[in-house]
């Protein structure tokens, strides 16, 4: 688990660096999952090989854990031919259906309905699969959230809805837009609207996440339908790289907590609660990992990501004409 968490972090850090060191290599809008590692890794550790995973557009970490080669994920973000989607999708629309990761939608909340649909297929075809559906706190105010959870509950679809509450929807703090948050209630309370299990878990603790998700997955796999898990952690980068119009270059700026709200105390607390050093400390204290082993993991991860960036930079861009390839427009 520790290695996977480090891989995600290092991957996301390299993306941030790419904007500074190689401007123009990544275009558009990239959304990073640094801070989410414990939640991503802890939840995915419960999954069976063929369980589908449906994340949001903040989707880099999941394929890394599923086994998609990091080189091809980076190449996709770098617009290259060797990208997992051959350059057709980019950061927000990764896809690796061979590893049970069909798609990621960037229209906030809509993918929650898609995940319920993947679960419908599992139910009709009797595959025994359980779908892992990830979305942010922001999407839990979208109509699609309510509709999809209701239908999944009525049809007892085999899906686990994992609400990643990182406290912010772009620039908006959750307390400005969520009725439960304003009342001091957990967002997992939304599960009551559908009479399904709802639980809040510390998303910075991979083992706590593992336990909660395993329970929900079992509930779904035994035909009892969906659950809602609110996984709480902090997003350590801003929502995405700054939105600029070409030719103005873009980069990752300061987190909204500083830039918009000027709340230094909250930022410092979040950094102090970084899931990776926290887990590292825990593992060493328990004796699961030695200091030397931890360092070796970190060195290996750095070396892997050096190679990943090198590969992606060297990968050729697709030809323009590929855009008109009829294989991708329609059959």
């Amino acid at each position, binding site marked *: 688990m520790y290695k996977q968490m480090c891989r995600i972090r290092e991957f996301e850090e390299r993306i941030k660096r790419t904007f500074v060191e190689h401007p123009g290599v990544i275009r558009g809008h990239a959304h990073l999952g640094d801070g989410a590692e414990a939640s991503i890794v802890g939840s995915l550790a419960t999954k069976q090989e063929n369980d*589908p995973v*449906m994340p949001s557009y903040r989707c880099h970490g999941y394929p890394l854990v599923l086994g998609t080669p990091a080189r091809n994920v980076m190449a996709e973000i770098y617009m290259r031919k060797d*990208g*997992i*989607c*051959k*350059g*057709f*999708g980019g950061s927000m*629309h990764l*896809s*690796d*259906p*061979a590893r049970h990761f*069909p*798609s990621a*939608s960037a*229209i906030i909340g*809509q*993918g*929650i*309905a*898609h*995940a*319920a*649909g*993947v*679960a*419908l*297929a*599992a*139910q*009709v*075809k009797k595959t025994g699969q359980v779908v892992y559906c990830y979305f942010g706190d922001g999407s839990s105010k979208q*109509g*699609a959230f309510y*509709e*999809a959870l*209701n*239908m999944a509950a*009525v*049809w007892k679809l085999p899906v686990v809805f994992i609400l990643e509450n990182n406290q912010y929807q772009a620039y908006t703090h959750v307390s400005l837009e969520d009725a439960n948050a304003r009342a001091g209630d957990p967002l997992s309370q939304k599960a009551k609207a559908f009479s399904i299990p709802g639980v809040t878990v510390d998303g910075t603790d991979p083992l706590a996440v593992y336990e909660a998700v395993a329970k929900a997955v079992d509930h779904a796999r035994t035909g009892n339908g969906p659950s809602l898990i609110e996984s709480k952690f902090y997003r350590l980068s801003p929502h995405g790289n700054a939105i600029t119009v070409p030719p103005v270059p873009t980069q990752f700026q300061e987190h909204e907590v500083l830039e918009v709200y000027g709340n230094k105390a909250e930022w410092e607390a979040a950094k102090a609660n970084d899931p990776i050093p926290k887990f590292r400390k825990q593992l060493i204290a328990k004796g699961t990992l030695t200091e030397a082993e931890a360092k070796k993991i970190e060195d290996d991860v750095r070396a892997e990501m050096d190679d990943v960036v090198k590969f992606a930079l060297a990968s050729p861009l697709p030809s323009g004409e590929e855009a008109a*390839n009829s*294989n*991708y*427009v*329609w*059959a």
Partner: protein
Amino acid sequence: MAREMMFGEAMASAIMEEMQRDPNVVFYGQNMAMTERDPFLKRFGKDRVRITPISETAELGIAVGAAMAGLRPIVELYMSEFMLVAFDEVVNEAPRMRYMSGGQVKVPCVFKAGFGFAAGWAGQHSNCMYNQMMGIPGLKLALPSTPADAKGLMKSAIRDDNPVVYLHHYMLMLDKSEVPDGDYLVPFGVADVKRAGTDVTIVATAWMVKESLAAAEMLAKEGISAEVVDPRTLSPLDVKTIVESVKKTGRLVLVDQAPKYASAAAVIAGAVAEQGFQYLKAPVKLVTALDTSVPYSEPMENYILPNEEKIVQAVKSVLAVHATAV
């Protein structure tokens, strides 16, 4: 062999046959399959035939996800306007996934809805808004005008690996005509000449095909031979057949129940201007609804809509234009 059938029966038989043929086809929607007496439910069971709440975003989004995971969902939406609530799923999700994934996923699904009621259903239930679903790369759009086309296009739609919006006209539901037995498929992107003629080409969709055929009968009594071309699918659109017809007749009238601006008629006129201008002996004429919402009261509703009379007048006006020598 063929059998006389109404529009609704033709569509239902297509869905039945395809569900029998392919266990991955599932069918769901609001207010259907409420009880065990439902014929689809009886035949295919409650896994494959389901009732949904009023949740178009989820109904369509679930279809997208299920299609990516190997099912072939048909979503019964009843009225094309109800798709508007979930328009993101129709135009920005279903048709995008195949392309954005670099061809790794397919999204085979059918969004079925009726449209075009001209029976006092007022502004929100009487629209012809299929033009809004044209020009969405990756989204196909079918508009049958006969029970035979209804069956053939539905079978093709279900077998198509792309998302298809399948729209059937409410004013045609009671029409009865011959439908071929068995595995009758109508291909997408192939227009049908419903009536051959030599003096003018009338291109029409859905109910307007019927009105145009009636107008052609009236015109024939005055010695005018009108050719009526039914595109059958607006995406993909068979411009070639339309241009070939214009090449023969030299004159083009487009009939569309929607308001004129940005209508399917305007799109087709543009395609002919680009690809068949040299064959035109007169400017094209569009016979469409007025640029207003559809009013409730009958005389007003009739006033704004195209009809046989207006089509006849339009044909006469394009025939009155004499081509000048080059």
